[in-house]
């Protein structure tokens, strides 16, 4: 994982969510643990755009359509993991499997997902 990107994202999250940067890791849940609301994600998107000069698609980077996409895959009788790998191409396959096992715990979005999105967008 790109350490420089991770560090900048931690900084942005700390400022916007008014939390200590040291308390944030790649594994921190952004909604489940840090309590981010949609208004906060909107600010995060604007800050990421300004910091990394990349276009941010909020539905993708914040996994907003994740549960809808899972339902779509099921309705179409397709393999959910493969379907998500296509709709969320910035996530490694191992992360998608992890997400699918974690759905009952609440919103799955982690700091590392944003790092992956930015890393891919920059390249």
């Amino acid at each position, binding site marked *: 994982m790109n350490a420089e990107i991770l560090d900048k994202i931690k900084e942005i999250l700390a*400022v*916007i969510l*008014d*939390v200590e940067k040291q308390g944030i890791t790649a594994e921190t849940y952004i909604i489940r643990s840090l309590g981010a609301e949609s208004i906060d994600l909107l*600010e995060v998107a*604007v800050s990421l755009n300004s910091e990394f000069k990349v276009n941010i698609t909020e539905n993708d980077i914040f996994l907003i359509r994740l549960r809808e996409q899972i339902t779509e895959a099921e309705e179409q009788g397709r393999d959910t993991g493969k379907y998500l790998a296509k709709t969320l191409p910035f996530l490694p396959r191992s992360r998608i499997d992890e997400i699918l096992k974690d759905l009952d715990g609440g919103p799955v979005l982690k700091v590392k997902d944003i790092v992956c999105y930015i890393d891919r967008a920059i390249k």
Partner: protein
Amino acid sequence: MLKRVAITGIGVCSSLGFCEEEILSNLKKPGVLFSASSFDDGVAVCPVHDFNIKDFTGRFKQRRYLNRGSQLCVASAIEAIKSSGIKQDAWSEAGLFIGSGPNLDIGGEFPEVKKGEIDHDDLMALWMLKFLPNTAASAIATYAGIHGENLTINTACAASMQALGEAFRKIKHGYLNLALAGGGDSRLNPGGILAYRKAGAIFSGSKNPDNASRPFDTKRKGFVPGEGGAIFVLEEMEHARMRGASIHAEICGFGSSMDGYSMTAPEPSAQWGEKALLSALHEAGMSPEDIDVVSSHGTGTLLNDAMEVNLLHRIFKDHHPHVIALKSWIGHIAAACGAIELAVVLACIKSNYFPRIRNLDEACHDKINFAREDKKIAGRTVLLENFGFGGQNSAIIIRKVDN
């Protein structure tokens, strides 16, 4: 049946301090109150020192949307809630009445405007919240869980007094038992100072900032801008007594009116200002003779003070209440001036100590009993008045209550 209304909590962030004791101590201390503005040394200002909103809110992400006036307002609300001793769940039914001003810190918010292009890298998604008038109220409601009747009032320098008056009436007429009311404002940024300087309203060209504010003096030349916040807990009297609250004062009457005369200057005969004062007296069931102390608007501008002395003379005739002018101590805090002046007045009536009008050498009216010296006075009933740009007039009467 009409209810009586008690003030049972105070939160204040002022240049004189953050609590009653600090305010009193600084009123008695000889010392420099005003300083030259950091970006315009001809202009005297009266800032609040050592203020950090985070010390009041703790972790509170909504903080990012608060301009400085809103920060002072929110911090004051948090302190008011604490000082009242009212438990968290009771705030759900409470009302919220806030006087706020415009954010004039245009240069600070948009530092690189060129050809009208205001977008820049640090601009937040919801940057507009720093300019919306009800952002402080929204943050206070979020913090305290307030869901009752509410108003955000933007009537220039009468705003926070009107907020107090409207809250008072909601409780008096039984719509609410409990409300937060007051305001916060700051215009000490380059945009605010530029606005005042262009309007010719502030004293400019001073070598000694401490002499710049001189309400009711014949040599007065304009006001000194200040900043701050003050919020009060207003409570129905029996509600307050039942829970054994300490009662700082009772609000007895309120009045407001509009000049309908000029966008900025007060109507010189003060006939409509008089209407506001008489309404407050009428609502309080008092006559002018019942007033012990008048906390004047006293900006130190030529027009306001000339209007105000005529008004006071006409209302009080041969009765001579003690007239104080707190802007000579704390500057003119625009939309929040009424609330902060009330906070200072409450500290004064508690200790029976009223400060002199600073820099008043030669009074512009010889029939008014101006506070020429710091004085011990057992003043129990105080009339406070504020007038604002746009011809806004407001007056409120408070009375000391023995607990």
